[in-house]
């Protein structure tokens, strides 16, 4: 992506200054981490405010199960550091694509283990950010429990850079599971999830249903035997688009999708589902994905398309903000400096 202007501030103060620069030039900016997601949605040549130079761990307190990192740190680097202490934060991206910690928060996109571990937002304890009108602020704290004030931490998570520039994040940690192991059914069978106690992941592809068990190895073996699972490799995920909807609506969505898929023009659609979550990963042609979008939106969900070459909008009408969302956005970014084009792309 080529850009007309870009800033790569080295710290929060420089970030404030860069934002002031953009403001005085009357420009709105796109906040960018590694670009692992942003480069996959349609963009123009907007000025970019990069968090790349905000790198590294600020403080890791193993006994507190917390880590504070700068937003531009690569998530996999953080994971490696934490692993040396036997700890993890289970919000890795679905494929290791170089995502930054700030990017994981900004998008809030589900990782492979969301079923067992919970959402990105549930691992965020404190966020430091710069508001759209240039004020450095923070929300949350470094303790694992905190109901002091409104939960702006979770609000920032999944806000796609429209509320503030995230500069530093404190995450909750947990011990790394000792022997995580993938298993699979012989044929696709998402109902296997109901026969397992809190599996870490259940992923159904066209061939089989993969299950990640992170329990004690004896428990995992017993669960696998009871549910008729065999050891298997981890699944791979289609990466062109992701459909997110209420899990209760998922069977209807999949049935309709299969119907469309059975026709010759729809045959090119690959679907992998994290069904209990209500999440599907899709590969397919622009036409097939456009049809999938209309189906998912009819079921009250949303389709995120992560391939600008397809000529489809990234977000679609399922993402159109309501009045309250617009008011909250305006409260933190009154002049619309932070990716005001976000939901229209």
């Amino acid at each position, binding site marked *: 992506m080529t850009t007309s202007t870009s800033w790569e501030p080295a710290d929060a103060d420089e970030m404030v200054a860069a934002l002031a620069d953009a403001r005085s030039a009357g420009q709105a900016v796109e906040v960018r981490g590694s670009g692992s997601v942003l480069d996959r949605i349609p963009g123009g040549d907007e000025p970019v405010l990069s968090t790349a130079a905000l790198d590294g761990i600020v403080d890791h307190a193993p006994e507190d199960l917390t880590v504070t990192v700068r937003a531009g740190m690569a998530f996999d680097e953080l994971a490696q550091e934490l692993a040396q202490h036997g700890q993890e934060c289970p919000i890795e991206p679905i494929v290791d694509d170089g995502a930054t910690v700030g990017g994981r928060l900004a998008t809030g996109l589900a990782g492979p283990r969301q079923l067992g571990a919970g959402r990105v937002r549930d691992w965020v304890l404190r966020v430091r950010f710069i508001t759209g009108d240039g004020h450095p602020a923070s929300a949350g704290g470094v*303790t694992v429990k905190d*109901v002091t004030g409104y*939960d702006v931490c979770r609000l920032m998570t999944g806000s796609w850079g429209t509320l503030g520039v995230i500069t530093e994040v404190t995450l909750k940690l947990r011990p790394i599971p000792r022997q995580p192991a993938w298993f699979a059914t012989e044929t696709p069978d998402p109902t296997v999830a109901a026969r397992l106690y809190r599996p870490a992941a259940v992923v159904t592809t066209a061939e089989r249903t993969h299950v990640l068990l992170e329990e004690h190895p004896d428990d995992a073996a017993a669960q696998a035997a009871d549910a008729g699972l065999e050891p298997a490799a981890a699944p791979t995920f289609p990466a062109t688009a992701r459909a997110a909807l209420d899990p*209760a609506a998922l069977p209807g969505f999949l049935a309709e999708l299969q119907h469309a898929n059975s026709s010759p023009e729809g045959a090119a659609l690959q679907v992998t589902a994290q069904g209990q979550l*209500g999440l599907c990963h899709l590969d397919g042609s622009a036409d097939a994905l456009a049809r999938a979008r209309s189906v998912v939106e009819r079921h009250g969900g949303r389709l995120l398309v992560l391939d600008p070459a397809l000529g489809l909008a990234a977000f679609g009408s399922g993402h159109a903000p309501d009045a309250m969302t617009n008011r909250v956005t305006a*409260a933190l970014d009154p002049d619309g400096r932070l990716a005001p084009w976000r939901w229209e792309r």
Partner: protein
Amino acid sequence: MLLRLRAILDTDGLTDGLRTSHLGRATYRRDASFLNADPLAVALPRTVEQTAEVLRACRDHGIPITPRAAGTGLAGGATPTGEAGARPVVVSVARMDQLRELDVANRRAWVEPGLVNARLGRAAAAHGLRFAPDPASQIAATLGGNVATNAGGIHVLTYGVMSQHVLAVELMDLDGEVHLLDGRAPEQGGLDLRAVSVGGEGTLGIVVGACLRLLPAPPATGTLLAGFPSLDAAAATVGALVTSDRLPDAVELMDARAIELVEGYAQAGYPQDAAAVLLLEYEGLPAGVDAGAATAERLASEHGATSVVRAADSDQRARIWKGRKAVAGAIAKQAPDFYLQDVVVPRSRLGEMLDTVVTIGERERLTILNVVHAGDGNLHPFILFDRREPDVLDRVFAAGHDIVETALRLDGTVTGEHGVGIEKRDFLGQVFDADSLAVQQAVRDAIEPTRLANPDKVLPTTVGCGEARMVPEGAWV
């Protein structure tokens, strides 16, 4: 105005929808805190539609509202104060108490706000499911209140606070319009306004419904009771436990005074010679539970535990927990009054925090019991007193204030699960800088622009305190 409210609420031959008499208002002056104020009236709508009409009537007359459910809150969040002395109408959701839908297949429940937490737990248990948030008040506290305060409980360490279990909130604004703030899809399709409404303490509108996540009941449970010769040894064991390879699902700490008090009351079998006990629980599949319990036994012994008992059966498990759950009852037999604090520190500062609480108690000549969600670093010091003692309230509040200041000094925060309400409101300037407070205010105003929903709570106001009084009503003394 009151006539309009009565016309809204007293329908179908019912006459108890609005309370305006002195006596009718009296029980709604306060929640479970000491803070009290006189409401203009108390509205008890039975339906969402009535609630909407009540809010519209209040909006039309510029009268603030104070949402309320069971009133088990401890921070004055349901105390009916208004800015500049305006008397609010208390809007109680207690009569909207139905379990709308138990969706077993998708493991979730749609509830009305007045449904009591424990009732949802019982309904879920019939299907092998559970609702994880378990505040101590769960037999009385409602789910609407749990949403409004982002409640915690004993099993937060691995299950997380209320917000993690709230999939969607129906938030009614002052125009009576209901907003579905929906997080049922796995990824945000916009801003997570649901998150802000959870813990909104009634300042963003009224929660008139919620969709809550249920979890499968654990097949195995391991419960341990360990006695320690010092608070420091118990605190050090907590540190070792949370850095071990399997987190306990609950880690509760009680100090010697708490042990002595509950043992005389509940006979839970706690070691009487211990300076502190830890109650530990592991849940899940059997091998993992056994391995966790074995690790806990080893770590407790290594840190000088004088006794470690693992419950052999559910009766023994219930007995161990009985002691923890009987704290408030035991206190009631010992002292006429108590003031319950709620602060959080990073776990590594727990020992230091506990030592300071002891010092503060000695200085103010007050008995303070420590009951701690130790795995979360969340302290609940109970300050015991008898209000008939002259000037005792000054010392109680001085001790409470010092406990909060100490937590802040140790990088902690002013509330972990009870909420800000009125009690902690004026500490927020110490927690957040001016810009961060401005963000909080801006978010609040964006969601609830009328400023009529529970004014005077959560954020410090420049207008000054309302009419809340820290001293109990005359009739109590």
